[in-house]
């Protein structure tokens, strides 16, 4: 019983409820202008009033985020692998990757609209642009940190490069790759929201812009909560996958 209580006290759900309580109390006690801090109930009410639009926006942004993330993940893993095994590529192309990341994604917005039009693909590309880099870097690092003694052992068994890669290098890089993916999923969400600012009619980013232009402060909070919820969901899902895939992490 006691252990159960302790676990409940430590769970994040309790922290959320606590924060919500403090929030409501503050609103009741100090009655700030809703411009600065609206009551949670007001936010919920506002969310309910635009429920269909909110759901559609949520779905759309989720789709963009997931697609951008998937593309970035695949591309990042490929590039990380190529850079690991080709010194030449690492020296010549990798610096370009670094430079590309120093340009803020907002600066690319207009260009992306010109290239990809006002399409789903345009938002996916902004999300992709933010995600491929952390995945590349972490894949590269993961593959390079493969234990040389284990590689020697595999070699002494007569393993070729192919076997070595799939039986040793990939599994040992996996924990590091997962680190990159966890960073990337959050960035992908940012990418798709920002991408929507450059012209779109559906999406959380669109709702955010509209709320900002119309000075709907409560709506801003609604969208913020929606984004937070999506981020947490995706992150949670990824953590779940990671636990199944690289459960041996604890060892080293």
């Amino acid at each position, binding site marked *: 019983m006691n252990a159960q209580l302790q676990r409940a006290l430590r769970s994040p759900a309790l922290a959320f409820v606590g924060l919500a309580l403090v929030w409501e109390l503050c609103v009741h006690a100090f009655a700030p202008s809703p411009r600065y801090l609206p009551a949670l109930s007001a936010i919920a009410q506002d969310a309910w009033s635009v429920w269909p639009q909110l759901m559609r926006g949520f779905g759309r942004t989720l789709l963009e985020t997931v697609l951008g993330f998937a593309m970035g993940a695949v591309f990042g893993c490929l590039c990380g692998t190529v850079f690991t095994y080709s010194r030449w590529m690492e020296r010549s192309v990798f610096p370009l990757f670094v430079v590309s990341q120093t340009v803020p994604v907002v600066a690319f917005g207009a260009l992306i609209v010109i290239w990809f039009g006002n399409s789903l693909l345009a938002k996916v590309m902004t999300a992709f642009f933010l995600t491929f880099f952390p995945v590349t870097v972490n894949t590269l690092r993961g593959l390079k940190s493969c234990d040389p003694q284990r590689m*020697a052992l595999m070699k*002494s068994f007569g393993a070729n490069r192919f076997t070595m890669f799939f*039986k040793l290098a990939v599994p040992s890089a996996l924990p590091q790759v997962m680190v990159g993916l966890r960073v990337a999923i959050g960035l992908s969400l940012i990418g798709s929201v920002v991408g929507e600012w450059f012209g779109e009619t559906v999406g959380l980013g669109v709702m955010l812009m509209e709320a900002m232009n119309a000075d709907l402060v409560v709506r801003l909070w609604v969208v913020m909560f929606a984004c937070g919820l999506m981020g947490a969901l995706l992150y949670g899902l990824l953590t779940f996958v990671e636990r199944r895939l690289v459960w041996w992490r604890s060892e080293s």
Partner: protein
Amino acid sequence: MLELVNVWKRFGEAQAQTVAVSGVNLRIAKSEFVTLVGPSGCGKSTLFNMIAGLLPPDDDGSLLFGGAPQRDGQLLGKVSFMPQRDLLFPWRTVLDNAILALEVEGTPRKEARERARAMLPEFGLAGFANHYPHQLSGGMRQRVALMRTFLFERDLMLLDEPFGALDALTRTRMQHWLLELWARHRRTVLFITHDIDEAILLGDKVLVMTARPGTVKSETVIDLPRPRDPSVVLTPEFIGLKQRLLAEIEEESQKTFAQEGTAS
């Protein structure tokens, strides 16, 4: 079986050159258990890597395996090699770690697992087939590594201080267990250690290496009767051998010490 003729290994160029192994001659006959002792940093591991085929020896000597000279990398896959660390893959179960070499060779997984499963009791791992390395004790992990080496059936087994990291009691148990195993299978073994007792207890022949640059200083045939039980270490013959070898190694250790003194 294995013969090293005037094998050298130097690292670096001209002035900054270090000679790790110099003019090593040794010969291991089939089914022989040869142990190699030497002070730390004497080039044991370099010698080992050369025999495993991981490092090419310098051109002035030759390495013969089964009578044929071996060129760069030709030894890979011919010698079953067990390094100091167990190097188990944390994502593989005991059984799958044991069959790693077989898998690399291309043996179908099912067949390889069957063979490994049959060997588990002999290695004291019965009932642990599906455990993961982090669930095992140090001694068990080492036995899994040894089983992996055993399943990679090659004429020569190279063991590099396999029990070095174990506590004294576990080590003694493992030594006797290894002797029994060897008596049954009679593989040719080259066993590196820095523990003289271990070298005498296990070997048919003890080779002592000199301080860096390493070379074989002496070769002592151990004619203690087999099977050797734990009490053999208390016999006068054993103690006599130990005293002699200890003196030799002590001499080499002091040289290493003196070298380090002048270097700094």
